[in-house]
């Protein structure tokens, strides 16, 4: 098994899928000659040529629209939004066209497109390079939203997304790109979309997280373990549709639930996860369901102290977990 970074897992999955299937191609801003602003597509232009790694104009609606058209035609396009923040001009294409194509045509047409988008903050990216946009896409039936946190899951889930016959929004946390490294086997494994994973077991409380926050939660869990508190950590992985089965089972097992995400609190993923738990296992709850999320502020500030205030970190998470454990 090789130790690779989160972004290397993206590149490997793209490359291997392009080798496997001639219909797979990439389009996006600077994905070709430049190899992507984060270097996620580095080397692919050289290997597969300009017809399969296409530098698109600065128009996200066109990138998504072209990809959706190609997908309907039988291709397997992977569209890159340079930053998730820029996806807004492509929302009509994604929500009104891609997500509804199968339903609208009564199953005659489908849309196997993958839209990759680096999201999240903590990188001094300020207002337009730090946003978490997942909540907006997590009530659009017909669309799947995936947000892996480890290189293993990145590679396995990106493969599954490319194999999927319907549109998948694939969210990559940009702070994880070079920060997170992990072991990835050389085999052609996949990770199923729609499955959360219990990545740490514990009997005192259950924490749900994804992306960068998953790693911060794991750090806080290690610290709490030294004080004798055992935390169960669930990596949500697929944000839409949610893996209700795993969420309910995990919540039942400890009766104390904390949901952590970087996205704004109100109307975020935590709202839905807590609603599922409240509906399904009220009589197993031993404490109020808690959420620790980004503040309801329009965007991540640039000023370092303000960004620190906005971002969650292992310390803030540790305190919230400790408080819940002690309840």
């Amino acid at each position, binding site marked *: 098994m090789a130790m690779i970074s989160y972004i290397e897992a993206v590149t490997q999955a793209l490359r291997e899928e392009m080798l496997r299937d001639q219909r797979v191609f990439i389009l996006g801003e600077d994905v070709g000659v430049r190899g992507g602003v984060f270097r996620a597509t580095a080397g692919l232009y050289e290997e597969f040529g300009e017809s399969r790694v296409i530098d698109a104009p600065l128009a996200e609606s066109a990138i998504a629209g072209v990809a959706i058209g190609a997908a309907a035609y039988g291709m397997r396009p992977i569209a890159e939004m340079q930053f998730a923040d820029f996806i807004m001009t492509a929302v009509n294409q994604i929500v009104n066209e891609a997500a509804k194509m199968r339903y609208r045509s009564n199953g005659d047409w489908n849309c196997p497109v993958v839209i990759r988008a680096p999201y999240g903050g903590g990188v001094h990216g300020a207002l337009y390079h730090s946003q978490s946009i997942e909540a907006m896409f997590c009530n659009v039936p017909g669309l799947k939203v995936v947000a892996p946190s480890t290189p293993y899951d990145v590679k396995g889930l990106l493969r599954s997304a490319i194999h999927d016959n319907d549109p998948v929004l694939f969210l990559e946390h940009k702070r994880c790109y*070079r920060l997170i490294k992990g072991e990835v086997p050389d085999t052609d494994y996949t990770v199923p979309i729609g499955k959360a994973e219990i990545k740490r077991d514990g009997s005192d409380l259950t924490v749900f997280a994804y992306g960068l926050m998953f790693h911060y939660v794991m750090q806080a869990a290690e610290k709490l373990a030294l004080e004798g508190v055992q935390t169960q950590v669930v990596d949500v992985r697929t944000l839409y549709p949610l893996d209700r089965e795993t969420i309910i089972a995990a919540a039942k097992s400890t009766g104390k639930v904390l949901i952590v995400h970087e996205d704004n609190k109100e109307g975020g993923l935590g709202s839905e996860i807590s609603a599922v738990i409240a509906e399904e296992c009220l009589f197993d709850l031993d404490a109020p369901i808690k959420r620790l999320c980004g503040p309801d502020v329009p965007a991540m500030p640039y000023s370092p102290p303000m960004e620190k205030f906005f971002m969650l970190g292992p310390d803030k998470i540790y305190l919230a977990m400790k408080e819940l454990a002690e309840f």
Partner: protein
Amino acid sequence: MEKIVMPQLGESVTEGTISKWLVRVGDQVSRYDPLCEVSTDKVNAEVPSTVAGRISKIVVAEGETVAVGTLICYIETVRETTDQPIAPQSPQETQETKQRYSPAVLRIAQDHQIDLSKVTGTGAGGRITRKDVLAYLEGSSETNASVEDQDSPTSQEQVPTISSIKDQVIPISPVRKTIAERMVQSKQEAPHAWMVMEADVTNLVAFRERKKIEFKQREGFSLTYLPFFIKAIVEALKEYPMINSEWTEQGIVMKKEVHISIAVAREDALFVPVIRDADQKSIYGIAREIDQLVRKTREGKLTVADLSGGTFTVNNTGAFGSVLSAPILNPPQAAILSVEKIIKKPVVIDNMIAIRDQVNLCLSLDHRVLDGLICGRFLQSVKRRIESYGEGTEIF
């Protein structure tokens, strides 16, 4: 000593390689001077110095790759800095002690016919947690099993009982913990000695009575006695700088700057914000700063800067009605003075009995650093200054 760390050279970059050092140990650098060249997989850049000073140590060698935030070198700056641990400012609310059960606890209790009044709670405020009920359940079934196994009923084992008196366990908040640690540290490390002196503040009382209404109207906050006392203490500290010092392994550090820590109590905790450069401030300046710090403390808005760097502490115990106290030193400071309540007392002056406003000034000292002689002189100096307040005292 300034620590220079590997900067973040672009979004998503988490590590960098020092490709070349542009300075050597011993070099003098100005602020913004380039220190080294760093290459990452995105950019190559120079790392500028954040301070002026002398390179005292290079930690990361050329060619090495380190994570963002890793210490790469030390720069010795002219000004020495002091680091003080800061009390975290998130006091926990104390939980209600009322017995309320979670859905999980109630369900388990119903399923197994458990009398919850027999279960000891270990949660916040003594709450019975799901784990407590499960543990109780396990305990009672084990007990039953062992009784059944035995042939003769000799065992007097009982199901776990609870104490008849409902003792309340209050969880220790982070602030409480910090206070506890600092107080224990102070009492264990510094041998405390104690001294008290009485001052006649009749003139000060009369003076303040005359000024206070006008002051409040014009300035928008009350003129208390504390700024007068602090002013007198600061002037005395300038006269006896040895009091404004601290004990370290390297030697006794006599502080040039006079930053006065003041103790501000809240219902649940004690904070010690700092009036910086108190020796450069008028009575008015000190009064205004006290007002701001007290307000910030109550609103929970104190910053790290507000709480650090104090060199001497003044505690206004008189505000609680105390007439004598033996304060615990605020480490690493060498002395602390508490100002007690001003009370009218019969006093002998020139063999006549007069009714005067008197106040006790209580000083605790670190006997490693200070002795009675110098502290006595210092207190005399404070007393003299306080007693000289009255008509003609400059507030502004």
